[in-house]
C-alpha cells in the first residue's frame, strides 16, 4: 500500500487525457440545461475541443512514460499510439455526427457526453496494465456504445442493433470475466506483469491458464469481431446510425485490439504456442467469411461491416506472427484502417439522407458526376481498402504479410493475399457504380456537403495519402513501441 493516498503529479499527467475527457463529458451534461437552444449547438464544438485537448495531453503524457496509480495503468509508446488513435477516431466521429444529428433532428448533449465517455473507456483500455482496468475500460466503452448504437430510439433498426449488441456483448463479457477469474486463481494476481512472470516460471497451473486464455480469447475476439464470434457486427453496423457504425468499427475495435495484443503478448506470452494456432484459424475464418459474405451484399453499410470483419482477419494475421514486427503491423494497419473506414462511413452518412433511406450500393450511381470531390474521397478510401499502393492500406497489408512471412506463416500469408484479391471485387463494384453509371434519383437530389463532413472526409484522405507516401514516421514509432517490457 502506498505511503500516500494522493497520487503524484507525474501520475496525474499520465492520466490527464482521461481526466480531460471525463471533465468535458460531465461539463457538457451540466451545461446543456443551462444553455439556450442556440448555444446548445455549440456542444459539439465543445466535445471537439475536449478531444483535441485530450489528444494534446496524450502526446504530452508520452514524454513521461511509466506506470501510474499503483501499476493500474502504464503509459508507454503502445498506449500513446492507441490513445491518439482512438482520440483521432473520436474527432472524426464528432465531425461526421454533427451534421448527421442536425439532419435527423436528434442533436443533444447526451450524445456527445456518451461519445466522450466511450472514448475515455477506450483510452483506459489502451493503457491498462491490470485486468481490472481492462475490464472496467471495456465496460465503460461498451455500455456507452450500446446506447450510442440505439441512440435513434424511434428507429426500429437502431433498436434491434442496440439490443443485439447489448445482449451478445454482455454475454461475451461474461466469458472474458470468467477468464479473468481463472487467471486470478492461477496466477494469484491480475497484474499483467505478475501474471506473465507466474506463467513463464510455470508457477500457474497450465490447464487453468489454458482455459483462462481460451475464455479471454472468446471475449476479445468478440469485441474485435473476429470469427467465429463475428455475427453481431453486420447486424449492428447496419442498424446503428452511420456515424456510430463508423465509430464502432474503428474506436472500440482498435482499443480492443490494443488490449487483446497486450494481454496475449504479455500475460499469455508463456503459452503462446497454445493460442497461436487458434489465432491462425480465427484470422483465416474472419478473412474468408468477411470477404465472401461481402461479395453479394447490396446494402452499403452491411457490406462495409463484412469488410470490417475481413480486415479484423488481416490484423489477426499479424497477431498470429507473435513478433515485434507483427505487433507493429497491427498498430499501423489499425491506424490506416480506422481512417479509411471512418471516411467510407462518412460518405455513406452523407448519401443516406434523412432517416437513412438510401444505403444501397446502387444509390451511389453517378456520384462522380454530381459531387466529384466526394466521389474522389470515397475512391481513395476504397482503393486503400483494396490495398492499392500510395495509400495507407497498401503499406498496412504489406507489413502484415511481411511479418507473417518472417514468422514462417507462409500459408496464412498466401491465403490472406488471395483473400485480398477477392476483396477487390466488391470494392470495385462501388467504384463502377459511382464512376460509370448515370446519376440516379438519389445523387441528383443530394444536398451540398456540410462543413463537418467535409472535415470528416478531408482528414482521412490526407492521412491515408501521407501514410501511403511517407509511412516511415508512423511505422518507426510503431516498431519502437511494439515492445512490452
Amino acid at each position, binding site marked *: 500500500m502506498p505511503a500516500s493516498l494522493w497520487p503524484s503529479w507525474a501520475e496525474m499527467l499520465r492520466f490527464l487525457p482521461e481526466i480531460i475527457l471525463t471533465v468535458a463529458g460531465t461539463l457538457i*451534461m451540466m451545461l446543456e440545461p443551462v444553455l439556450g437552444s442556440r448555444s446548445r449547438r455549440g456542444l459539439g464544438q465543445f466535445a471537439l475541443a475536449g478531444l483535441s485537448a485530450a489528444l494534446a495531453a496524450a502526446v504530452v503524457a508520452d514524454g513521461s512514460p511509466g506506470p501510474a496509480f499503483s501499476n*493500474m495503468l502504464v503509459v508507454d509508446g503502445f498506449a500513446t499510439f492507441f490513445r491518439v488513435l482512438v482520440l483521432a477516431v473520436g474527432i472524426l466521429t464528432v465531425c461526421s455526427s454533427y451534421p448527421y444529428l442536425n439532419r435527423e433532428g436528434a442533436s443533444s448533449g447526451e450524445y456527445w457526453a456518451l461519445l466522450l465517455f466511450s472514448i475515455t473507456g477506450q483510452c483506459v483500455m489502451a493503457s491498462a496494465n491490470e485486468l481490472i482496468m481492462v475490464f472496467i475500460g471495456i465496460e465503460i466503452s461498451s455500455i456507452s456504445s450500446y446506447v450510442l448504437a440505439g441512440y435513434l430510439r424511434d428507429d426500429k433498426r437502431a433498436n434491434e442493433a442496440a439490443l443485439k449488441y447489448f445482449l451478445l456483448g454482455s454475454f461475451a463479457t461474461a466469458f472474458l470475466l470468467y477468464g479473468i477469474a481463472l487467471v486470478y*486463481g492461477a496466477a494469484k494476481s491480475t497484474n499483467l506483469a505478475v501474471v506473465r512472470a507466474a506463467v513463464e516460471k510455470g508457477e500457474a497451473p497450465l490447464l487453468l491458464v489454458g482455459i483462462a486464455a481460451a475464455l479471454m480469447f472468446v471475449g476479445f475476439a468478440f469485441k474485435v469481431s473476429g470469427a467465429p464470434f463475428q455475427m453481431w457486427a453486420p447486424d449492428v453496423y447496419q442498424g446503428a446510425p452511420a456515424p456510430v457504425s463508423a465509430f464502432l468499427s474503428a474506436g472500440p475495435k482498435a482499443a480492443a485490439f490494443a488490449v487483446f495484443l497486450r494481454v496475449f503478448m504479455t500475460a499469455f506470452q508463456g503459452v503462446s504456442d497454445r493460442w497461436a494456432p487458434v489465432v491462425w484459424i480465427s484470422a483465416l475464418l474472419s478473412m474468408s467469411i468477411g470477404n465472401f459474405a461481402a461479395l453479394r451484399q447490396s446494402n452499403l453499410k452491411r457490406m462495409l461491416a463484412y469488410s470490417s470483419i475481413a480486415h479484423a482477419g488481416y490484423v489477426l494475421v499479424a497477431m498470429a506472427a507473435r513478433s515485434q514486427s507483427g505487433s507493429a503491423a497491427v498498430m499501423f494497419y489499425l491506424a490506416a484502417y480506422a481512417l479509411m473506414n471512418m471516411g467510407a462511413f462518412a460518405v455513406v452518412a452523407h448519401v443516406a439522407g434523412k432517416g437513412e433511406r438510401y444505403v444501397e450500393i446502387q444509390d451511389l450511381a453517378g456520384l462522380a458526376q454530381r459531387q466529384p470531390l466526394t466521389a474522389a474521397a470515397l475512391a481513395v478510401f476504397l482503393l486503400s481498402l483494396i490495398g492499392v499502393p500510395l495509400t495507407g492500406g497498401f503499406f498496412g497489408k504489406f507489413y502484415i504479410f511481411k511479418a507473417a512471412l518472417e514468422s514462417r506463416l507462409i500459408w496464412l500469408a498466401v491465403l490472406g493475399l488471395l483473400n485480398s484479391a477477392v476483396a477487390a471485387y466488391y470494392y470495385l463494384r462501388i467504384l463502377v457504380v459511382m464512376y460509370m453509371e448515370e446519376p440516379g434519383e438519389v445523387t441528383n437530389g443530394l444536398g451540398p456537403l456540410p462543413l463537418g463532413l467535409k472535415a470528416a472526409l478531408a482528414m482521412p484522405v490526407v492521412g491515408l495519402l501521407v501514410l501511403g507516401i511517407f509511412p516511415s514516421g508512423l511505422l518507426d514509432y510503431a516498431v519502437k513501441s511494439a515492445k512490452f517490457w
Partner: protein
Amino acid sequence: MAAASVASALLAVTRKNPVHSMLWVLTLFLHVAGIFLLLGAEFLAAVQVIVYAGAILIFYIFVVMLLDLPDEEARPRFGKHWPLAAAVGLCFAALAWLVRAGTGVAPAATRLAAEGPPRGGLSAIGMALFGPFALPFEMASLLLLAAIVGAVVLARRRAAGP
C-alpha cells in the same frame, strides 16, 4: 446451500413465467450471498443482498410488470434449437470438471486453509478501495454515470428531445 443454489438456478432458467423466474433468481442470489459469508466475505455478502437482490432484481421485476404480456406465457418456452443448446450446456458442465481437474493439480489449492484470518472485512476492503484500487473505483463511478446517462437517453420520451 450449494445444492440449493443449483436447484434454484435450474428452476430460474426453466420457469415459464418471467416473474417466477425472477423469484428463483432472487433465491439464488440469497444463497450465493450465504456462500460469500462462508468464504469470509461479509461485505460482499451484504452488497450482494442489497444491490443484487434488493436493487437490481426489483428493477427487473418492475420492468416485467410494466411490460406484462399475457400472451407471452402461451408460447413454447424453448426455441427449436433446444437440443443443441442442451448439448452446449452439458459441454459447459464438462468445463466444470476441467476446472476441478485444473485446480486439483495445483499443489497449494487442494484444501482451503482453515486458520487464515478472514480478509473480506469491511476495513480491509475499504483500505484497498481507496488505496491501490482508487483508480478503478473512480472509473467505476464514470461507468455508472455513463449508464445513467444512457438509460435516460433511451428511456426518455421523444417530446423531451430538442
